[in-house]
């Protein structure tokens, strides 16, 4: 029997390892990263994967080996041993050092993504250097869609004020985030009803929207996926089937799953501006729509 049970444990664990090895080839892996800090996230993921993978193989290996080696032994007694201080010290100290390394190695990437100085509105890592942002954006979540508002000229003069009140020249979109390659985008993330969570898998970006608060979020895309064609008024995909999507990752009611949006990264600022101008014209021609949208995207509190 011991061979059978050892095999059961071995096969399950080898299978577990196998699916991790096969997954990238099956297309069951991290979506393509297109953000400036996404590379850090992926690198840290692989570091943790390597460390945990090593300990997975080590511990499961010892377990299965013990089952074979020490199972149903034809001996009178097992060995009488209550413990070993040296071993305890070893398997306390080594994991401790590894875990401390794993912990501290995370800090810079986290700071880069989330430590946002509310004065300069940029990660504290960059403050002082006074790196300017390129694009302001309000993302207002509600049941069950994302309402996006961007100012004329990409940047708002008094962003904090603008995020609350809006401006008649703002462009309003639903479920579409537009930016351009290498633009540093700051998002004022809000919600008008329940908690939602803005998730852009390709940007390795996620942030909950809290009722009553405006959450600071930023990203910089390092790759483009669309080009605007002024002749047709259509966005042309640079890489077919390369849709980058927006999802909600905080339960927000029955249609939580339907908060799907799309991320469009234009190849240049000129391309974005051309698109913006046409989109603005289209919006102006729907004056009534605009009124309704402002009311909704400021949560009715102008």
């Amino acid at each position, binding site marked *: 029997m011991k061979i059978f049970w050892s095999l*059961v444990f071995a096969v399950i664990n080898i299978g577990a390892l196998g699916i991790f090895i096969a997954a990238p080839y099956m297309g069951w892996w991290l979506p393509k990263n297109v953000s400036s800090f996404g590379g850090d996230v992926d690198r840290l993921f692989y570091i943790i994967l390597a460390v945990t993978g090593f300990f997975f193989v080590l511990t499961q290996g010892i377990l299965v080996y013990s089952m074979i080696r020490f199972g149903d032994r034809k001996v009178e007694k097992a060995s009488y041993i209550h413990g070993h201080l040296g071993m305890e010290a070893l398997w306390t100290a080594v994991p401790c050092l590894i875990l401390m390394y794993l912990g501290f190695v995370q800090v810079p990437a986290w700071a880069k993504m989330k430590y946002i100085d509310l004065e300069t509105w940029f990660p504290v890592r960059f403050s002082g250097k006074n790196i300017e942002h390129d694009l302001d954006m309000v993302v207002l979540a509600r049941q069950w869609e994302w309402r996006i508002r961007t100012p004329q000229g990409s940047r708002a003069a008094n962003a904090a004020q603008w995020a609350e009140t809006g401006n008649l020249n703002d462009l309003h979109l639903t479920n579409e985030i537009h930016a351009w390659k290498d633009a540093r985008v700051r998002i004022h993330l809000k919600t008008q009803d329940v908690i939602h969570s803005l998730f852009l898998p390709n940007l390795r970006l996620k942030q909950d929207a809290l009722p009553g608060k405006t959450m600071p979020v930023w990203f910089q895309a390092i790759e483009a996926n669309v080009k605007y064609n002024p002749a047709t008024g259509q966005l042309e995909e640079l890489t077919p089937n390369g849709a980058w999507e927006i999802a909600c990752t905080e339960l927000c009611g029955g249609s939580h799953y339907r908060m799907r949006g799309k991320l469009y990264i234009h190849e240049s600022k000129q391309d974005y501006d051309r698109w913006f101008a046409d989109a603005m014209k289209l919006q102006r021609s729907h004056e009534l729509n605009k009124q309704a949208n402002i009311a909704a995207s400021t949560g009715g509190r102008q």
Partner: protein
Amino acid sequence: MSELSHQHHSPGFLKKYIFSEDHKIIGIQFLFTGLVFFAIGGILAMMVRLQLAWPDGNLPYIGKWFPQAWGGKMSPDFYSMLFTMHASVMIFFVVIPWLTGAFGNFLIPLMIGAGDMAFPKLNMLSYWVLWPAFIIICCSFFVDGGAAGSGWTAYPTLSNTNAEAGLDAPVAKEGEQAKKEPYSLFKDDSRNSPAASGSGMGQILWLVSLLFVGIGSMMGSVNYITTILNMRAPGMSLMRMPLTVWSLFITAVLQALALPVLTVALILQLLDKLIATNFFLPPGGMTFGNWQTTPGGGQPLLWQHLFWFYSHPAVYIMILPAMGIVSEVLATFSRKPLFGYKPMVFSMAGIAGLGFIVWGHHMFQSGMDPRLGTGFMLATIMIALPSAVKTFNWLATLWGANIQFTSAMLNAMAFVSMFVIGGLSGIFMAATPVDVYFHDTYFIVAHIHYVLFMSSIFGIFAGFIYWFPKMFGKLMNEPLGKLHFLLTFVFGNLTFFPMHILGIGGHPRRYYDPTIYQYLENLQPLNQFMTICALMLGLSQLIFVFNFFFSLAFGKKADKNPWGANSLEWEAPSPPPHGNFESIPKVYRGPYEYAVDGPTDNLPQATPMGATHS
């Protein structure tokens, strides 16, 4: 207490089996009710899986269960209710009652050599106070809007927005003041929620039900702590207690310290819902469609802090006793002393202590100050250390052992194997930048199921099989036990392991229909595969249920100590009479004296034979 154990009176049936003050009967009562809710929770889980695999609906036969209005399939709100209630039932009505209720009650007095609990009446009450909870949670499925549907975490403002009376009235025309009726507790529509249909009356009942569960757990905790500290048999020093007792003791302390916080949070949310107190509603109010709530004055994030301050220790409440049980079973069937008794105790205490300062790791993306996130991350990652120490000690126990492949032992070894996976996958989400991606994806679903199902439940199965002879005087059927183990182990892994892969693919949790996303298209075959395995996993549990009742009726009669184990419960007859021991035993040594010289390879704690192995 020895006088008590000698009162040989024969109480009537009602007093003996229903309103019993005997800790053994109470433990078995927890066991049976847990089994009922395990079935309910399992069915809910399988329905969740069905929806995920075939989100278009049109399921053969099953489609007919749903109202015509839903188009022969589940509605999204119904789906929210399913996963909310699956988690709530499994956590609050299965795993916690089984571990602390069933094992805690049954084992503590027996293992420390006491006649009963310190407060038998309170003990009885700790079970019967759960009955309102059972009834309320079952009723909640049938109220208007269905059972709670805002996740087992019940985050405001989804969970606690209460519609004022008059919400269902026609919306006022522009410029006109909306007609408002005075708020009334007793008007039906005052319990509707504009946020989600399952956040109305269902949510209120969920809150009330959990309050009762909390009260019951608190009564249990007080009892366990008192009993363990005051009623140990002579010679049973703290450092001679079996690890199961240690784990239940630490769990009781955790519960006693953390539960009040949950109770407060539940009451606050209940007040929010019933009398519109706005503890968790934002100052600016909210807008649902055309309806605007009145301004609140609270903070949605406050709930998350309070909730996780309890619920993070709660996950240790749901794993520590299983660790204790597994240590017991591993040592017995290794026929070898448990490796590193003291490090095992200290690491459990370490897990419990650290458990109080890591709740923020559930909130890295919540809008909490990210600098706090860094602190919580470091504390969380350090919890892997005592967990690693425990794992290595279990493995060292097996090293040089003489492993007996009984079904209890197989379940215990599976616990070790699966706990490694559950522990390691936790590190990904403890790391803040990586968590940005993995937060609220299937990776966390994989993690929680590896810890709570694949670990805790295997520990529980090991415990049931191991102590079944003590509970009922009969042995559970071994071949059936092994078959059940094999199927559970295989299908459990096939169900839950691919969830890691879904998580890496970015599949969000709690999605009614993931197929509308392009980036998730590739993952759908996995979803279907997992569902088939989940159904098989569910069916496999029927073997356990059959084995349980079959063995209860026709099992081989067990003698006092069928496993050749050392701890005190094996000194009592199987099953032990009221009062447990003929005379309170004396303890001479620790509980893990195996592989010793003598007529048998074990030296029970109560055998007064030299002091060669102290």
